[in-house]
């Protein structure tokens, strides 16, 4: 008798909680769910931070707040797979491979870069350290909800730990004086040696089979690499030249880690090989070739070439290389070069979610997914289109009609403070 009444009380309280947080229905927009074909005059209903209904003939709940968005376009919140907002810092100059360094321990959540990202329709970012190392540390996946600490905005794994990947780089950026590598051959050898050590460390753990006495000494670098080897932690690999791209794939095959290729300036030269390896690619669209040796052959053509080859294509800002507020134009430049509109919009959203292993929560507008979406004034591929509102987990985080938010979107005196935007005064090691 006692137990059922307790259950009933709980159910009653739950019902009260749902009733007090009323659903919101966005009515009349063209909705591009990415999971499906665009919906004209659609309805999007959100509740408790989640999408509860989406479609053309969806009934609007009686208690819902109705928002008229006729003439607007709604798309999923954008996923930026590679960003440097919030001043992420991982490895230092002491050695080329530092998997133990976490950008978690460096992020400034008050950096105005987060506001710029929201103004660009971005709702999820992968914050990464730089490319001046073969392995510069652990990245972190961040949801752009409001928060006072990095823990409060980081995606969490089931065990409560923060979710993220591992930043790696090859080519010219990690090359410098010892102990850093001086050649490509040395770069690969250093990385392989480290992964071999991690394989041995992992084997010791497996042999211990849960016996604490037999476990190897704790080693922060090895622990992180074990997560890479067992597929929990995805490698986000900076790479540009065609041969460097193939080197990444070679090492990936040898050690079996999961990898996302980033930048990939010469992807158009090895698109078939990339697709055959099932390696997803996060591209950056740059307004001219060059700026550094490895970007000599970068071309908008990367986007359609990878699509034709059947590779999974996403985009990233590499903010401060490109401004987070301008993320949408990457997709448009892809279409300019011949990418399909569908793949281009997918590249801003679902493809990125897949590359961060978050596609069960974000990347499309589907029932049950997080209520992360962007209200646009028009076609996402048009230069004339503006981001009107950005919503994260059912909370409006950017509103063009709000004067402070508009200032962030447009710039102006003091609008982007406090902020850290790197300035280039000449050639520097880059991203």
């Amino acid at each position: 008798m006692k137990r059922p009444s307790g259950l009933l009380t709980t159910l009653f309280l739950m019902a009260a909680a749902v009733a007090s947080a009323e659903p919101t229905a966005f009515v009349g927009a063209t909705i591009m769910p990415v999971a499906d074909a665009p919906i004209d005059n659609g309805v999007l209903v959100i509740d408790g931070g989640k999408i509860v209904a989406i479609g053309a003939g969806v009934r609007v709940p009686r208690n819902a707040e109705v928002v008229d968005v006729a003439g607007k376009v709604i798309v999923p919140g954008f996923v930026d797979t590679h960003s440097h907002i919030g001043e992420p810092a991982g490895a230092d100059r002491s050695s080329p491979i530092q998997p133990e360094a976490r950008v978690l321990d460096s992020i400034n959540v008050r950096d105005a870069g987060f506001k710029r990202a929201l103004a660009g329709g971005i709702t999820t970012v992968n914050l990464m350290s730089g490319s001046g190392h073969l392995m510069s540390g652990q990245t972190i996946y961040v949801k752009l909800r409001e928060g006072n600490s990095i823990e409060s905005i980081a995606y969490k794994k089931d065990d409560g730990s923060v979710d993220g990947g591992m930043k790696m780089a090859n080519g010219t950026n990690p090359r410098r004086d010892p102990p850093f590598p001086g050649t490509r051959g040395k770069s690969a050898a250093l990385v392989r040696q480290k992964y071999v050590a991690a394989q041995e460390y992992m084997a010791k753990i497996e042999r211990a089979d849960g016996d604490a006495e037999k476990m190897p000494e704790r080693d922060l670098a090895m622990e992180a690499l074990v997560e890479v080897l067992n597929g929990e932690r995805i490698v986000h690999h900076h790479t540009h030249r065609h041969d460097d791209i193939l080197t990444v794939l070679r090492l990936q095959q040898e050690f079996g880690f999961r990898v996302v290729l980033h930048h990939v300036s010469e992807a158009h030269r090895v698109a078939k090989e990339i697709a055959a390896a099932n390696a997803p690619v996060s591209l950056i669209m740059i307004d001219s070739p060059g700026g550094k040796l490895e970007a000599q052959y970068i071309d908008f053509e990367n986007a359609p070439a990878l699509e034709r080859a059947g590779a999974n294509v996403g985009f990233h800002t590499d903010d401060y290389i490109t401004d987070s507020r301008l993320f949408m134009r990457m997709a448009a430049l892809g279409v300019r070069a011949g990418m399909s509109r569908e793949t281009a919009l997918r590249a801003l959203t679902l493809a990125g979610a897949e590359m961060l292993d978050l596609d069960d929560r974000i990347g499309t507008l589907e029932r049950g997914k997080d209520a992360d979406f962007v209200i646009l004034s028009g076609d996402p591929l048009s230069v004339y289109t503006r981001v009107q509102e950005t919503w994260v987990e059912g909370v409006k985080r950017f509103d063009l009609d709000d004067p402070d938010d508009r200032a962030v979107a447009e710039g102006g005196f003091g609008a982007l403070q406090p902020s850290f935007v790197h300035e280039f005064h000449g050639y520097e090691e880059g991203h």
Partner: protein
Amino acid sequence: MKLLSRLLTVCLVCGVSVSVMASDIAVRGDRVYTAAGGPIENGVVIVRDGKIAAVGPAGDVAIPDGMVVVDAAVVTPGLIDAHTVVGMVGFLSQDNDQDYLERSAAIQPELRAIDAYNAREPLIEWLRTFGVTTIHSGHGPGEIISGQTLIAKTTGNTIAEAVINPAAMVAATMGEGAVMSGNDGRNTPGTRGKVAAMLRTELLNAQAYAKKIAAAEDDDEKEPPARDLKLEVLAGVISGEMPMLVTAHRHNDIMTALRIAEEFNIRMVLDGASEAYLLLDEIKAAGVPVIVHPAMARAGGERENLSFTTAEKLINAGIPTAFQSGYEGYVPKTRLVLFEAAMTLPHGLTFEQALAAITIDAAKILGVDDRVGSIEVGKDGDLALYDGDPFEYTSHAVGTIIEGVQVSDRTK
């Protein structure tokens, strides 16, 4: 008579109408934006001997027999990049070819752009593929006076073939850019006050130099001063022959530039001008045009307060304004004024205003509007062809014509 008949025979043999030359071309556009009046639907532009011979609706302008005809959805004047360092720097950022900035002294107006400009630099082709036909390139910001600039077409194998003004402006910098220029403490400024003092001192020297020359011309008894390359150039600035292009981003640095322009009565063009929106009245009163920073420039350092709306505010205040590709030093090595102007469209600028800022208004600021910047009879036959709204990302540049020669037929 004999010569003429022989010429006619030759031309009959080669089967080409006598009047058609390599630099003759006819362009038909579904819509032609001339930057000199409203758009022409179903327009035709005739270029003869490199110059625009006729422009108007297809019904009014006949295409001569035998003339090569090119079609496009949209035709505009060849675009003008009002400030770049393309041609002065190798696109791969290698130490041996970054000739836009000499660090050995803070004031070196004697450095000529024509002695460094590489007409075969790959980024020149990149710019012209998108419809850019004229660029203002040369020494960049980073020293109080870094050197001279030039104006060139985005074609030609040599500087001689490309250039239309070999000594366009003297490039100067105010504020942090000039302060940080001092690399080793040798006669380089450490403060804003010192930047202005050094520049004013050198301009005073130039005034004195010009006076001595004038005095010697008036009086046979007087010897002219020994030739001084630096002071010769600055005397040209003092006399108003050569404008000074001043890169200044912060409002206080813009005011310093205007103060010096007034003191020495020099023709000035403001460059960058991130905080120009704070000083619309002052800039307008000074009669100084602005080559505004790229809309998509990084909002960092002394450009931390830049805005996508600056161009709109300047233009609607009646201040002559043009766009530039600018210089970032890394990736991207150059921007495209087409995309920089496009970025102002969602921020209040009209299509016609944005187009004018990369064509006729840029030509006026650079002093080359007698030759380029609009599709008008007598001007150079420089045209940009697109398959739709040129500013839309998903449109393409489909052809570029410089002085009647199709220099690009790529779709990009």
